[in-house]
């Protein structure tokens, strides 16, 4: 167990180091940060002063060491757009993204698991075919477009839900539903296929034969054995949402999470804030990955961790 944790942490560090190198190379060597961040009409003296402020006048290797050192202290410097520490902004916005992700994936699970089970009870039946086609459709609709349609439908036509921002709890419904849709579609397919496999197993027939109630056999015995792939997908979806796929939803609904902040920072050419956001995302992805491995172990004690 100790060895497992050690190797997972090492791998996590490699991932974070990889992200560091890529961000460093892209921002400092491929692009010119001074040109990106300063206005076009700034003078040569202003440029030189700015270079000095960011330490860009020193050798690239020393810059990289400094960069890594700053990151290890979680100090990215002040955001050029808001003139306060970038990490402060990130820590303000991150909970909103996590909230959106949790509620969205919660929606998806609540709808997908019963639907998938119903479809799996009679493969090839009407419920099954409708579910499969519905999830294909759900996978095909672009998220940003679905969000816009929701806004037109629920906020403009029926006037029952707010369109953008995060002032009241009802503000989360539309963005969470939009975020949930592709997750929901993939989850339904997975629940369906793994439940079909489980329901064909001998132990299910035995349970029915000894007279256990239907709900108990399907909902407890079979579902628990099908849980591992489902958990994997749920974890993967959480990672996807945090790794930037919530950007689109947050932009459409003006949900103040890290995704929307990242887009705004890119528009304002605030590379420092963007860097901070990318790092936070990388660290959250690594943490979720490690957490998922522990949850597997918890659900299925047969699994050996390396």
């Amino acid at each position, binding site marked *: 167990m100790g060895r497992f944790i050690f190797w997972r942490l090492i*791998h*996590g560090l*490699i*991932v974070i180091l*990889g*992200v560091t190198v*890529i*961000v460093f190379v*892209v*921002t400092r060597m*491929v*692009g010119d940060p001074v040109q*990106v961040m300063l206005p076009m009409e700034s003078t040569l003296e202003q440029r030189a002063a700015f270079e000095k402020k960011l330490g860009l006048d020193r050798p690239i290797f020393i810059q990289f060491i400094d960069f890594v050192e700053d990151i290890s202290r979680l100090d990215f410097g002040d955001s050029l757009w808001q003139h306060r520490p970038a990490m402060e902004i990130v820590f303000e916005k991150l909970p909103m993204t996590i909230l959106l992700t949790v509620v969205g994936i919660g929606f998806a699970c609540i709808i997908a698991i019963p639907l998938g089970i119903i479809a799996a009870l009679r493969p*090839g039946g009407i419920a099954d075919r409708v579910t*499969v*086609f519905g999830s*294909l*459709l759900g*996978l*095909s*609709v*672009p*998220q*940003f*477009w679905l969000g*816009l*349609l929701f*806004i*037109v439908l629920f906020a*403009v036509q029926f006037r029952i839900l707010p369109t953008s921002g995060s002032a009241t709890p009802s503000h989360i419904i539309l963005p969470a539903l939009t975020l949930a849709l592709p997750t929901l579609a993939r989850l339904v397919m997975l629940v369906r296929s793994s439940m079909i496999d489980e329901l064909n197993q001998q132990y299910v027939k035995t349970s029915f034969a000894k007279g256990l109630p239907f709900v108990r056999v399907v909902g407890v015995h079979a579902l628990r054995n099908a849980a591992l792939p489902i958990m994997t997908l749920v974890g993967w979806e959480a990672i996807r949402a*945090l*790794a*930037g*796929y919530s*950007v*689109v939803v947050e*932009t459409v609904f003006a949900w103040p999470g890290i995704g929307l902040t*990242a*887009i705004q920072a*890119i*528009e304002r*050419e605030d*590379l420092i804030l*963007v*860097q901070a*956001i*990318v790092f936070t*995302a*990388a660290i959250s*992805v*690594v943490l979720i*990955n490690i957490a998922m491995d522990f949850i597997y172990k918890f659900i299925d004690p047969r699994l050996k961790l390396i």
Partner: protein
Amino acid sequence: MTPTKVNNLEQALTQNQYEWLDKLKELGQELLRDKAGLIGVILITALVLMAFFAPYISPHDPTEQDLSARLVPPVWYEKGTWDHVFGTDHLGRDVLSRSIHGSRVSLWVGTSVVFMAGGFGVLMGLMAGYLGGRVDAFIMRWIDTQVAFPGLLLALIILSVIGPSLTTVVVVLSLNGWMVYGRMTRSAVLSIRQSPFVESAEIVGCRWPRIIFRHILPNLTSPLLTLAILEFARIVLAEAALSFLGLGIQPPATSWGLDVAVGKNYMFMAWWLVTIPGSAIAITVLAVNLVASWLRLISDPQEREKQFARHMAGRMRRHLKLKNEKESARS
């Protein structure tokens, strides 16, 4: 060369040709049996033709502005005209023509990313699976590491620094999406490399590039094809999302995602600006997904068996029903 040999060669060639035709015919028959797959194939064919002949079939130039005809509604509205079947946008550009031209970007980005990411991923997977050892360990750790990257955020940062364009979108999406091919190819190679034909090739003395390309790769065609089609659908959505965020295709070029982004500002008075390019994306991706799920069904022996059993059970039921009816009629 003696005449007999020429004959043999001719025979071999013609035989091969017929085999190919037979296979195509078989595939067509399979397709007719699956309505969803058929619809998908028809839609994709139509889309490809539309993209190919876009300048000839679109009624207007997609970038032609007409400020006197701004925000004209579609033809079924009172103010709509047949000149602009799906209406016009805020600059008086024809929505139908823009949607027809938008298909070019989507299909081009999808195809080139699938080829670039797929080519690289399959090569890496073949090497990892066949060579094993340190090569395998290195490639797999690389894949694990890159899978754990926050992909879309990195793509956004790269696009914003280098400057968004068609080429950068293709490159960034390829860099982001090759890992899935690598993993899948490796696991398939691991199961195939123990088979007798690979061992024979090794004994005969083939070098590893010949073994992986001539003997292993052809056996991976059907799973890789399904994966590539699924990835194509994902890439079309990703390109649309990037263009929607303003970091993909740049105006004056046309892209469905870009059109939705522009239409968003006029959403409440001109719904067609958002709805029509959006439905174009949804229909394209749905068609591709339908074809992918059909391909998966026909290339998976287990699924084929199930389908066959279902088919036979249906015939049996019908037969019994007919028999019962006859008997009851007789009595």
